[in-house]
């Protein structure tokens, strides 16, 4: 058996670089989400603008990964684990790109609220956000370590997010009927909850992709 390690070397390096780029993208999206929450809590409009601007870099990385994946498929005709790695990178990067958009949406809601005093201290929304961030961090680790157990945990956590989302919306509706003059702010807060819930769904999609990567089977977790 003649070893062809040298032939594969470039390909293996490319796969690793692709992975690192995607991990960087996940990291940026997670940070954008964290900043968007801080901007909301502190009503820091400057920070909200920074979050919106930073989405461009996430979008750029998504485009870079897409082009890279197309090139690798065309040049290397990947099979088996190589193929699954490449397909997974393509799918996860689409999800992360959306997470970046959702973080920017949250920042836009914060801008809409502006410096108008908040209807009540913001406690529950950041709580929901921290769960969602935890899901993103787990998907980062699950992808980095190729760990299917972590991926399954993400799916389980999403049920909590959905429950919190339902509770928040009901509460906001109640407040809205009591204080109809604050309808703009309440609607923006409801949008923020909706955006956070969507981030959770994308984290679950990423978990499905990671399960496909590690086990070679398709899963539907939600």
């Amino acid at each position, binding site marked *: *058996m003649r070893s*062809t390690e040298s032939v594969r070397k470039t390909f293996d390096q490319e796969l690793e670089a692709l992975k690192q780029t995607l991990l960087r993208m996940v990291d940026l999206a997670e940070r954008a989400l964290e900043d968007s929450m801080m901007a909301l809590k502190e009503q820091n409009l400057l920070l909200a603008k920074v979050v919106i601007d930073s989405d461009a870099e996430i979008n750029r990385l998504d485009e870079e990964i897409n082009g890279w994946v197309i090139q690798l498929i065309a040049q290397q005709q990947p099979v088996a684990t190589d*193929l699954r790695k490449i397909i997974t990178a393509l799918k996860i990067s689409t999800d992360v790109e959306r997470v970046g958009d959702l973080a920017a949406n949250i920042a836009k809601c914060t801008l809409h609220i502006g410096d108008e005093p908040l209807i009540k201290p913001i406690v529950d929304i950041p709580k929901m956000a921290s769960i969602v961030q935890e899901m993103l961090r787990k998907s980062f680790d699950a992808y980095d370590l190729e760990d299917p*157990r972590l991926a*399954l945990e993400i799916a389980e956590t999403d049920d909590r997010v959905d429950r919190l989302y339902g509770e928040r919306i009901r509460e906001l509706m109640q407040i809205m009927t009591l204080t109809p003059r604050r309808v703009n702010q309440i609607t923006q807060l409801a949008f923020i909850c909706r955006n956070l819930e969507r981030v959770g769904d994308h984290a679950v999609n990423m978990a499905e992709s990671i399960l496909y990567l590690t086990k*070679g089977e*398709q*899963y539907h977790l939600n």
Partner: protein
Amino acid sequence: MVQVMERTRERAGLKQTAAPAVPDVRPLVYDTKLLNLWYGNHHALKNIDLPIRENEVTAIIGPSGCGKSTYIKTLNRMVELVDDVRTSGEILYRSRNIFDRNYPVEELRTRVGMVFQKPNPFPKSIYDNVAYGPRIHGIRNRQILDEIVEKSLRGAAIWDEVKDRLNTNAYSLSGGQQQRICIARALAIEPDVILMDEPTSALDPISTLKVEELVQELREDYSIVIVTHNMQQAARISDRTAFFLSGEVVEFDETDKMFSNPEHKRTEDYISGRFG
């Protein structure tokens, strides 16, 4: 670990969707059971178990010297032409062991056509190449021969290219055309199975594509076993793939599964070019 995953999945009420499988119900053409083969002292095939099904393309892949060509040549007992060959185990063709002492080997070879790596037409006209098999089976009627030749050349997707020069020497054709003439020659005896031993390795990419397309069409009427060095070719055209290594079948599965999620690391390493 797998069990833990299963349980976790059950707890979470997860649905797992499997890709649609190739139906396992097609009748067997060949069934190889515990086949061993020695060239002198060299143990070339070791305990091969391999079913081959009707109207499917079965690809055999593996590095040089892994036994894949030996195996395919065993299916029509051509391997016996080599000196000092011994076998054990059995190969059932249509439920009958081809190693039986009184098995009619000539009949086997009329039911099982073969196409080789290098196109090997006879130094005769295109017509005579294709009519050769039917003639040695006693067909003399010119009209019947004409029909067989046309049908076989059409079947091999080369009729339109040669119909106006059936009397020219087959050697005057390009390599890709010669190979399709050889396929037509195999079809002319109306075989049940076609064995192909690296049929495109001496062809240019366009001719390769034509032969690959042809294999897809032939599957409708024949069962095909193809040995190939070209893994992408196996992935493109076969229903099932067997991976041979050092005379053993490491893995045999549906081709889609083999090339997306092989069971064995050695298969993965081979198909993804880590050795070979």
